[in-house]
């Protein structure tokens, strides 16, 4: 059982702050690191895996700093986001080389075991250059698992992986977490994270925006006011009838046509809007969320 601890960790490049005073503790089980692209997830994983020196604060694994400590890799399995460029090796050669580099007693057996875990025994004789994205991802995972590490760090492991292989990968991660490993993976998709992890850490623009159980995070993200624009044949009448709805907190008319609606509870708004329109004989021509992008969800979280 291993614990990764970040204490007031910051990392900056010149004037650009990539990670800003983040403190978090990653415990055994699965932790999802959620944030939009460019939020600093890769930088955080680089810090956690000893491939980046913190500019301030500390990153420790079971109490020992990881930067420039090669021995730490006995306990860490890392799956970077970067593509494997060892296209000229077969999957088996690659995983075997990883096992040998860890100085394992029986690297051959360890490699086979790891290939079995990720279900890649059959294609392991082929060159990595011929693999699909999902297969590459699984070979990367096998190479990270080959020394049976207590800590597993994965950077965007589901990116570009087809749905079936994604489910397989997710089941694998759950299994790893269930075995008591400290598993942390990053993703920019909430649905992906909550399917696998109970514990979620949210980072936005290098800051630690939220931390907690996935239910809590989900509520934080969905219970915010949501903006829609509705275009109807009679905007003013629609606005008047919508403001009577408890789920609507504000309406305003657009000069060029359409109504901006702020909704506090989008679940009941979705049910009520068609009924209201029907009741008042209003025809709705267009309905679109104006801030549904994940970035706006994240910025809402940061704004508090």
């Amino acid at each position, binding site marked *: 059982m291993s614990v990764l601890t970040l204490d007031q960790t910051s990392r900056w490049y010149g004037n650009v702050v990539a990670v800003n005073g983040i403190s978090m503790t990653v415990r055994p089980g699965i932790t999802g690191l959620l944030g939009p692209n460019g939020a600093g997830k890769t930088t955080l994983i*680089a810090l956690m895996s000893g491939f980046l020196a913190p500019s301030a604060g500390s990153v420790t694994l079971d109490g020992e700093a990881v930067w420039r400590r090669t021995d730490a890799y006995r306990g860490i399995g890392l799956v970077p986001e970067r593509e494997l460029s060892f296209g000229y090796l077969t999957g088996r050669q690659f995983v075997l080389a990883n096992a040998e580099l860890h100085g394992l007693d029986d690297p051959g057996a360890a490699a086979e075991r790891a290939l079995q875990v990720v279900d890649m025994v059959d294609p392991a004789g082929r060159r990595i250059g011929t693999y699909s994205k999902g297969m590459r991802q699984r070979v990367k995972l096998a190479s990270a698992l080959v020394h049976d590490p207590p800590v597993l760090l994965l950077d965007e492991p589901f990116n570009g992986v087809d749905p079936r292989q994604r489910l397989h990968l997710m089941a694998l991660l759950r299994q790893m977490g269930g075995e008591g490993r400290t598993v942390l993976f990053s993703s920019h998709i909430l649905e992906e994270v909550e399917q696998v992890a109970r514990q979620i850490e949210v980072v936005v623009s290098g800051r630690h925006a939220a931390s907690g159980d996935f239910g809590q995070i989900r509520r934080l993200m969905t219970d915010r006011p949501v903006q829609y624009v509705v275009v109807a044949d009679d905007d003013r009448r629609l606005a008047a009838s919508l403001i009577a709805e408890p789920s609507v907190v504000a309406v305003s008319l657009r000069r060029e046509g359409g109504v901006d609606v702020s909704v506090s509870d989008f679940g009941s708004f979705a049910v009520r809007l068609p009924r209201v329109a029907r009741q008042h004989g209003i025809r709705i021509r267009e309905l679109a969320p104006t801030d549904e992008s994940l970035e706006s969800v994240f910025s809402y979280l940061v704004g508090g």
Partner: protein
Amino acid sequence: MNRTVLRLAAQALFGRRRGVVLLLIPAALLLLSVLVRLLTDEEVGVEAAVGLGYTLALPLVALLAATAVLGPEVDDGSVVYLLAKPVSRHVIAVSKFAAAWAATMVLGALPLLVAGLLLDWSQPRRALAFGVSAAVAGTVYTALFLALAAFTRHAVVIGLLFALLWEGVFGSVFAGVRWLSIGAWGREVGSDVSPLVDAAGTGLAYAVVAATLLTAAAVWFTGDRLRSFTLRGDE
């Protein structure tokens, strides 16, 4: 030395297209030697062919070999797979160097010896001196270019400029460059094997010490750069 790193480096050398180019250079040199032998008067031909091999083919082979074992991995970040292991960075650097060095010896230095023999059977000792010069210079070139590959992603371009301008043009125009020219150090050592090779004029001791120091420093620097390797995202 780590055998796995060595093996991976050898696969990186010859598992890619670059490996073919690496074979073409000595092949071209040997072909040229045969042509020169058949078509020209002996002395002029030896000078020209060996000169070309020594100042151009040898550094080129060393550059390709050194950058092939390290360059692409550092550029695209996949060297993390090698570095996320409990293996000393200096051991990795030395192993990478060993692989590139072996390639430079076989495809850079040895062909010069063979070219010397092809051009003139009657002077085997001179051919040996060519080989020794090339072995010394090739060793230093390999180490220097390896350090360059660990330092910058423009290693091939910078290495090429260094070989062509500093070693080639300046080395032949300004006599003072010999003190800082890898090619000159190699020639100095070679001239000790056969007087038919012109000494560069730095003295044997200086050449040996300079070559040894630069090689050791460059390999150490490579290891130190790997220790500080930083993983970056795509941002």
